[in-house]
């Protein structure tokens, strides 16, 4: 047991911390256990640094699954990657990825979220962590795990306990006011993707207004415009991820 390797919150008492064993229990005491301080109770981590985890959030229909498919197309040959989807009711998103053949079935896991897609990515991330760990256990070391949220509203963001970086996807079809409305997704995501720019003329959305509002909301955080029907490989997003993977300082 190396204390510096223990995960957050899971640090064990260590003999050098003044932990004393053995000790005796009085007869009235409720039976209880004491861990052997020499034994690490944590499951062994897969060897090497764990995969970079990128969360993809945003309202329903903004193009999250289409973006995941594009990233699989763009990065599937250069990175060892896997995907976790969080459908609200079904396994629709996972099925879409499989149908479109962008990723083999053993690289996609669907998490069920019990009516609360935001809970599953923020307040109680256990099922998503299980899915990520199961993927790493069955596939071996990975470079990148994409976690697609079930799609909620502008307030749903990922917990840092689940992901390293998050992308928030909105679309121009929802109107050019969305960046101005803000919310934690728009203001704090590590990358804001404004998708479906091909539809802008049809809905009368002014991209320069969206760009201006996004900059005002986000300060120095990056924003990219995208049309997944025109750029099937989501080039600016794939490049952003490539940079993250390349410059990543592996988790201890």
């Amino acid at each position, binding site marked *: 047991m190396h204390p510096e390797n223990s*995960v*957050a*919150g*899971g640090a*064990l*008492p260590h003999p050098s911390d003044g932990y004393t064993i053995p000790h005796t229990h009085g007869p*009235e*005491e*409720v*039976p*209880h*256990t*004491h*861990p052997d301080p020499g*034994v690490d*109770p*944590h*499951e062994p981590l897969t060897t090497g640094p764990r995969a970079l985890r990128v969360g993809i959030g945003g309202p329903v229909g903004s193009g999250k699954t289409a973006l995941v498919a594009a990233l699989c197309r763009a990065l599937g040959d250069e990175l060892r990657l896997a995907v976790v989807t969080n459908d*609200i*009711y*079904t396994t629709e998103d996972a099925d879409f990825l499989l149908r479109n053949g962008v990723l083999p079935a053993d690289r996609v896991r669907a998490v*069920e*979220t*019990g*009516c*609360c897609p935001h*809970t*599953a990515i923020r*307040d*109680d*991330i*256990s*099922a998503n*962590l*299980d899915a990520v760990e199961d993927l790493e256990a069955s596939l071996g070391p990975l470079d990148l795990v994409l976690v697609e949220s079930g799609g909620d509203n502008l307030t749903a963001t990922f917990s840092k306990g689940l992901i390293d970086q998050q992308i928030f996807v909105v679309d121009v079809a929802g109107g050019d006011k969305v960046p101005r409305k803000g919310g934690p997704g728009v203001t704090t995501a590590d990358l804001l993707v404004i998708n479906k720019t091909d539809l802008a003329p049809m809905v009368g959305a002014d991209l320069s207004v969206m760009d201006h509002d996004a900059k005002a909301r986000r300060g120095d955080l990056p924003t990219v415009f995208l049309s997944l029907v025109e750029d099937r490989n989501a080039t600016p997003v794939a490049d952003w991820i490539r940079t993250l993977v390349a410059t990543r300082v592996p988790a201890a």
Partner: protein
Amino acid sequence: MSGMSLATLLVLADGRLPSGGHAHSGGLEAQVSAGRVRDLDAVADFLRGKLATSGLVSAAFAAAACAHPSEWAALDQGLDSRTPSPALRKASRAQGRALLRAARAMWTMPLTGRDLHQPVALGVVAAAAGLGPAAAAVAAAHGTTSGAASAAVRLLGLDPYAVHGLLARLAPECDRIAADAAARADDPVDDLPAAGAPLLDIGAELHATWEVRLFAS
């Protein structure tokens, strides 16, 4: 229960503990869809039935695992044989795994299997938290009703105050079941309660085949 920290029990039994419960309806979704549960009275009957069957078994195994945490494997097997539905076994193990994950960040946990049945995990966690079998049992009984009750609010659009009124009325029953369970915490595994609810088993199996559902179980 002398020397037990009540606040620790509250932390463990809090519905906001990130231990996977929010995705499960405790079998209610299947019964709602079958038309057996439509209103508050039916939810009350459902919860009472659940408490008397799977609640009793859960409380007994939580108490026993708390009293004898090192026997988690035998208890886990005992609960497996009391859970005929594969879908319910899966749901119970998923929630046990999630609870153990949360507990590792909260207390110093002994080594166990990774995905224990939820009541066994709960007992082991309660022991690690310094709680006794009676506390573990009451947390198990309470969890049996509270998870399904919150699913009832979401599935049926019931008045949340009315549902909590129901939970308050069921509390003495939870205490009674937990006390019974704790009194048997030292019984051999084979002698622990084995009450079953066939409709819950059947419902869970059907539910697992649906294409569209709100809850994982």
